[in-house]
């Protein structure tokens, strides 16, 4: 599977696409495949603060509930309006079906995230369990 080179990744399977002082956040293809059919997404509202490594919401498939962890700290500026009615869009296009746009608090935090190549290596090892 292809992980976009211009995205950063977490070991908790979120992606972050940096754009100057802003960023877009979602979950990876590997995450949606592991979850199966996604039926519910619980996200914060615009204006909410999220902090790196902390829970900012949850995603549920038919069989599993998963917390979402913020790849970086910041203020939510936009929430994908499609996902409350069509959460299955994450299954069909995880890297396109973004969850949040945030204004980054400290772009230095991004240095702690994984590159596409590192993330791919990480999931291939994890998938081998």
């Amino acid at each position, binding site marked *: 599977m292809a992980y976009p080179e211009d995205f950063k990744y977490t*070991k*908790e*399977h*979120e992606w972050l696409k940096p754009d100057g002082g802003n960023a877009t956040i979602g*979950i990876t293809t590997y*995450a949606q495949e*592991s*979850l*199966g*059919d996604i*039926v*519910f997404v*619980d996200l914060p509202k615009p204006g909410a603060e999220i902090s790196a490594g902390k829970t900012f919401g*949850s*995603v*549920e*498939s*038919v*069989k*599993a*509930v*998963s*917390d*979402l*962890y913020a790849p970086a700290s910041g203020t939510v500026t936009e929430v994908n309006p499609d996902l*409350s009615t069509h959460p299955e869009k994450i299954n069909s296009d995880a890297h396109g079906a973004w969850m949040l746009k945030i204004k980054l608090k400290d772009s230095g935090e991004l240095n702690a995230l994984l590159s596409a190549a590192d993330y791919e290596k990480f999931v291939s090892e*994890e998938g081998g*369990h």
Partner: protein
Amino acid sequence: MIAFSVCCSAAQPLPSDRGPFLPPVETTPAIRKTTLNAVHRKLGAKMVDFNGWEMPVEYSGIIAEHTAVRTAVGIFDVSHMGDIRVAGEQALAAIQHISMNDASRLAIGQAQYSAMLYPQGTFVDDIIVHRLGEQEYLIVINAGTREKDFQWVRDNTRQFDCVVENLSDEFTQVAIQGPRGVDVLQKLTDADLSAVKFYWVTRATVCGLKNILIARTGYTGEDGFEIYIPSDEETSARVWGEVLDAGREFGILPCGLGARNTLRLESKLPLYGHEISDTINVWEAGLDRFCKMEKPEFVGRQALEQTKAASLKRTLVGLVMVERGIARDGYRILNSSNQHIGYVTSGSYAPFLKKNIALAYVPLEHSAVGTEVLVEIRNQGVKAQVVSTPFYKRPKKA
């Protein structure tokens, strides 16, 4: 993310967070596999630990699999279920002693849903009793309770003149479920399936194998069959493949435990460790109609007579979420003043009904249809309403 709280696994309330991508469940002792394990892997199934068994949880996706069973047909490996044969002069008396339903009503070839109870009227397990011959019965039991159940049957039938055998490892059990299940199986057997009514069994040739037990039973709320074939790998794989081939024209899908759980939940079929357990009694679970108090004696009867007289404290109800959120196994039920009044036994998105549904134990005063309660989801009370059950009932044949 990805706290893998699998729908249908543990007997305990599920932890809401197991950390990133932990393997679903610790496996002690060694995990067991059915003879179809390699076949599931080849089909690309996601495998999980279910009560010590490595089982497919889904192949193409739970929603697609669930829909196939409601509208066409699906095939399940249910070989992890256990089978106990009770035969001999006093087989009926033995069954009557350990089973709450009335096995004396069974004709040869007929089956009935029942349960085995502890003396206090709570559940050892729910079972299906099949009468195979004049003095021969087959009890089908759950995977997670196989050893416990066998010991229970053996220990509690010693006083009767009968043989008790654990046949659990003798069979690969395959379920063919859904409105087109009959069409699929009819292509593979010489039995006239139209003559086999729901909850009846027959023996016939299936896929060239002689004298195969065919039961018109299942755990999906649909019409369907369960077949018991010899448990060698080659035969099991061949029969599985032939059923899939025969079902292709009807849109058959291999289905995992995920769909099995959502299907049984929509139909309000109980799952051991969830709706029934060793701390829940028959009245609470609402299984009165399978419990024949007119029988003079069975294990648990006396306690049930006493608890019936005392007033019932809690009862199993169906809930539909009114506000956004999915109730999950183990979540707490709150009243309008946020007091803890009950808990969810099973909860999920319901793929056919396209609603978020749950089964829950609540006090009687909160059990009337239409009553509003709150489900505590991530520390928030989310509105749900008591509805009549089952949530889904299969359409009657025209």
